[in-house]
C-alpha cells in the first residue's frame, strides 16, 4: 500500500531508455500529475513532441512504469524536542 503506481496522460508512457531511475519528490501526492518536468529535469526526459513521434522507430521504445514510494510520508509530523528547552 505504500507504493502508488500511476499512469497519467500528461506523463510520457514510452522511452527508448530501459533503465530504472529514482527521483525525489517532496510535493503533494495529488499534484504529482503536473510535476513531470520538475521531477525529471534532464533534457533526455523532456516530453516527446507528438509531431515528431513518427520519426522514431517504435521497436526501440519501452513502456514506462511510474511508482511513487509514499512510506516517507508516514509520521512526517513528528515533533522534534526543542533544543533550547532543558530536559
Amino acid at each position, binding site marked *: *500500500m*505504500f*507504493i*502508488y503506481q500511476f499512469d497519467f*496522460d*500528461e506523463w510520457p508512457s514510452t522511452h527508448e531508455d530501459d533503465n530504472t531511475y529514482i527521483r525525489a519528490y517532496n510535493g*503533494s*501526492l*495529488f*499534484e504529482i*500529475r*503536473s510535476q513531470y518536468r520538475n521531477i525529471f529535469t534532464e533534457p533526455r526526459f523532456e516530453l516527446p513532441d507528438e509531431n515528431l513521434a513518427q520519426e522514431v522507430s517504435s521497436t526501440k521504445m519501452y513502456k514506462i512504469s511510474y511508482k*511513487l514510494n*509514499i*512510506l516517507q*510520508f*508516514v*509520521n*512526517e*509530523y*513528528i515533533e522534534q524536542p526543542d533544543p533550547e528547552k532543558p530536559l
Partner: protein
Amino acid sequence: MVHAMQSINYLKVDPSNFVFFNFAGPKKLLQISQSFWKMTKAGPETDYESIFSLRVNDITLRELLLFQSLYVCGTQTDILNMVKDQPDPRVFFKTFLELDGTNMVTILSFDSRAMKVLLDEEMSHYFTPEYPLFYKSKIQKTDNKDKFFYRSAIDMAIENNQLTAAACIIHYITEFQNNYVSSYLFQNNLIKLMDR
C-alpha cells in the same frame, strides 16, 4: 453533487479533495475525488479522479435494534456473543449515515475477539474490496457531546491496547484494501505500532 459542508471533510485524504454525494440512484455512493486540469483540443478542462468511494446503506429496523442491543451490552463477552449470533455479518460492514458515516466493524475495533470473528478468512466472501472497510471515523467525545475526534479502527485498537485487533485490521487492509489510499491510515500510528 459536490458536497460543500465541512461535516464530512474528515473523509478527505487531502484538504484539496472534493466530496461527491451520488445518492440519486439505487446505490448511494459517497465519493472522494481529486480535480485536475485535463488538456483537450478545445483547451484545459476540469476533470475528477476518484480516490475512493463508500457505499452508504439505508438502515433497517432490525439493524437499528441490533446496534441498540450492542450499545446496552454489559460486557465484551455479550458483544462477542451477539456478533457470533448474527446469521449475516454484512450488517457490521455496512456504512451508515446514522453512525456518522462509519460502520460497526470500526466501532467494535476496541475488542480483539470481535475483530477476530468479523475479519476471519471465512468471512472473505462477504468482503467487498471495491469499497474500503477501514477509513477515518468521526467519534463524539463522551465529555462534550458537541465535539468530535477523528480516528481510524487501527488507532482505536492501539488506544485500547488490542494488538490482536490491530493485527486483524492490518491483515484485512493488506489483503483486501491494498492501495495507496490505505497508507494514510498509518500516517500517525506506524511508529506506535512498531514500538509495541
